């Protein structure tokens, strides 16, 4: 089949051709950027935190009427309140282990500082997010130790919330270890926190432990984390609790009830509930990402449907308009297949032209998003996928009207109207 008559025919429908091509181009630009956004958000959501997330929950509360101050007596008093709570939690039948902790990965409350391998450094080697915990810290979090050992009970200390951070030992994430000691094994080496002068020995390295926030300000150090064996004593306290397998709901209910019973002078956070499962913490942290992925998927689907319907509408109109010409072609010996193929090829040409323009638009839109929203460059295969999708959409949309066209009987050619 030669393309010449087809091009001549298209020239007589400039407006319709331009409209379909424009629609395909815009659809392609939006769809492939949307798929890219969906892909990158899903990838982000699915990153493992490094915790054993099943059966893990956090209790967050504030002591009321507790003393305030930084003196030793106050610190000891606050520490005893915290230890009392922990023993209450550990004695519950559905609780496997519990540890005091300042935050959890994704919990959106972050204590960050600087880490160096030399004392008194003005320029830190890495930004680090701390997790301060007590007894059973590793066990409760369920993080995987790849080298070194767990903290011993004797290494666990406590201090006033605002006092200087000078631990003698710490367990750090593999990411932080690689950053600080790229050429050596970090195990057993020294680390200096917050520009301090007292060394902390790295006694263990965990495979992976995510920072306590997914906000963009912490992107650069999202995996640089350190576990510090220190209970922080303040007017508020948080506990990470691991329930016995399958007993999570019961343990959460029992935990807050038992804490209230032991000491009612407290205010529970998390909307007054006091306990929040890690699944909910994760859902909250990634709410925007998940929502974005859902929104983009919906927009993609509706967009493809609208564009497809638009092609059906315009092609149907053309088929109606060329009713007689189709009859003439059929009378002159064109087979049904030829008519079908004519409309399909025509659509392929228009959609192909639109797709070419769409590639440019897609890249332009991506550059704009990169500039405004710190997005990444779109990989080529997303654009190619988008091109495939719109071409396929065009073919699917054109099939019904083209099929109807192919059914025009040759006798139409002999009728005058």
């Amino acid at each position, binding site marked *: 089949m030669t393309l010449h008559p087809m091009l001549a025919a298209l020239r007589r429908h400039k*407006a319709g051709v331009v409209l379909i091509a424009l629609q395909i181009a815009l659809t392609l630009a939006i769809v492939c950027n949307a798929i890219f956004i969906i892909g990158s958000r899903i990838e982000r959501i699915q990153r493992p935190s490094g915790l054993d997330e099943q059966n893990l929950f956090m209790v967050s509360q504030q002591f009321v009427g507790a003393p305030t101050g930084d003196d030793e007596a106050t610190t000891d008093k606050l520490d005893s309140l915290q230890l009392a709570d922990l023993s209450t939690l550990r004695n519950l039948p559905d609780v496997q282990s519990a540890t005091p902790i300042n935050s959890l990965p994704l919990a959106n409350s972050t204590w960050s500082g600087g880490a160096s391998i030399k004392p008194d450094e003005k320029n830190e080697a890495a930004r680090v997010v701390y997790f301060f915990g007590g007894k059973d810290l590793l066990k409760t979090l369920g993080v995987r130790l790849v080298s070194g050992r767990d903290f011993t009970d004797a290494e666990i200390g406590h201090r006033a919330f605002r006092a200087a951070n000078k631990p003698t030992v710490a367990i750090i994430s593999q990411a932080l270890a690689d950053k600080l000691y790229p050429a050596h094994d970090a195990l057993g080496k020294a680390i200096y926190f917050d520009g301090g002068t007292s060394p902390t020995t790295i006694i263990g390295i965990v495979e992976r432990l995510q920072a306590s926030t997914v906000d963009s300000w912490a992107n650069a150090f999202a995996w640089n984390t350190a576990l510090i064996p220190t209970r922080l004593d303040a007017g508020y306290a948080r506990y990470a609790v691991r329930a016995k397998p399958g007993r999570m709901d019961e343990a959460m209910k029992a935990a807050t009830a038992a804490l209230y019973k032991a000491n009612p002078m407290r205010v529970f956070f998390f909307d007054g509930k006091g306990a929040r499962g890690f699944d909910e913490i994760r859902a909250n942290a990634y709410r925007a990402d998940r929502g974005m992925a859902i929104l983009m998927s919906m927009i993609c689907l509706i967009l493809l449907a609208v564009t497809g319907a638009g092609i059906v509408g315009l092609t149907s109109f053309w088929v109606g308009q060329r009713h007689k010409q189709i009859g003439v072609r059929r009378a002159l010996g064109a087979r049904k297949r030829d008519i079908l193929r004519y409309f399909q090829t025509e659509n392929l040409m228009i959609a192909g032209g639109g797709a070419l323009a769409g590639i440019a638009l897609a890249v332009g839109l991506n550059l704009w998003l990169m500039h405004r929203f710190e997005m990444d460059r779109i990989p080529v295969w997303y654009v190619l996928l988008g091109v495939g999708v719109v071409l396929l959409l065009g073919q699917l949309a054109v099939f019904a009207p083209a099929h109807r066209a192919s059914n025009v009987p040759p006798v139409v050619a002999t009728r005058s109207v």
Partner: protein
Amino acid sequence: MFGYYLDLALRSLKRNPALTVLMVMAIGFGVAASMITYSVFRAVSGNPIPDKSAQLFMPQIDAWGPQQNDKGEPAEALTYVDAMALLRAHAAKRQTLLYLVQLSAMPGGSRELPLGLNGYAVTSDFFPMFDVPFRYGNGWGAQGDEARASDVVISAELNRKLFAGAYSVGRTLDLGGHDYRVVGVAGHWNPQPRFYDLFSTSGFADEPDFYMVFNRALDLQMRPGGRNSCRGALTFTTWEEYTQSNCVWVTPWVELNTPDEVARYRGFLTHYAADQQHAGRFSWAPNVRLRDVTQWMDYEHVVPPESRISLAVALGFFLICLVNTIGLLLAKFMRRAGEIGVRRALGASRREIYTQYLIEAGTVGLAGGVLGLLLTALGVAGVGILFQPHIAKLARLDFSLVGLTLAVAIVATVLAAFYPTWRAARVQPAWQLKSS
């Protein structure tokens, strides 16, 4: 004539129900997507204090220096030392210092359990500067600041919880083990975004429960209940050491009414930073900022990126829907070329054809708008999947959004109809009559 054309439009739309439904759906979805995302965008990017946003300024002084500051920008709050220096200098007509504090209301009356409260430690100018409305009483005056009084202003909501909504001025309240005297009950006041504290909040939070005297909070050594940001080695333990550290936690605001006052205050800030440099406290040249409410919200990126991206994508989506509508209207109108030819031959002017077909397009637009409105109502209820609850609940379907949705749908469809109508009006009567 309008009624007749409307009748013709309805008949024509009924003739190809599939095509009509397609157009109405395209407009409806396009408008709804745009309106839903716009309702959120409007909520988060709105001016929280339109009357005074150009007169309220947030001074910043770099106490961290080029090595530790945020890529050359001073910290987003002040150290205690700088904050107190600004307060003492009193270089603006009105000024306030504030920070977020957390306290608990002790059990009492019918409540057995304590109540966790969020509030702000502020100076007396806070209330007149930010136009805080009062239900009962008033804020404390400058003498309250000086006397370091245990005065407190509570929210209407807290007044309801503690005093059953009664006139509570003069009553006493136990917060965290200390007695406070209620001097005022604020009316509902929770500007969104919370421009005055973008340091501790992202701009969207529940209404604060109380406001207490800044000096009183210092006397009680109340640590900031919100954000606190420090640089370098942390060596402090006591409150005194903490207040002398480089940690920033106090947000200052000043009210400046004329460009002259602004220039003068800017000069004052630079001068102050230069003095600190001479005194040896800063080892860097003065690095100060003075941003007004709008500039400050821009700098703090109050509008979540999700809101901008989704609005942009929705507008693109709407554009495609319009292109789609142009195509479909073109097909629809041109199919009636014969009918147009007859009307033209019988004496209808081009203007008549224009009127008829634009009315038809307007009808489609109206139907699309109504569908869009339904979808918008549905979507506004469901924006919680995309935004944090504090933001999601700001999106509302109010009167102006309803009007806007319908207006946008009709105007957009009529605009989209211009090209197809122009083509319809150009139909040559002779041609059409001859061929049929």
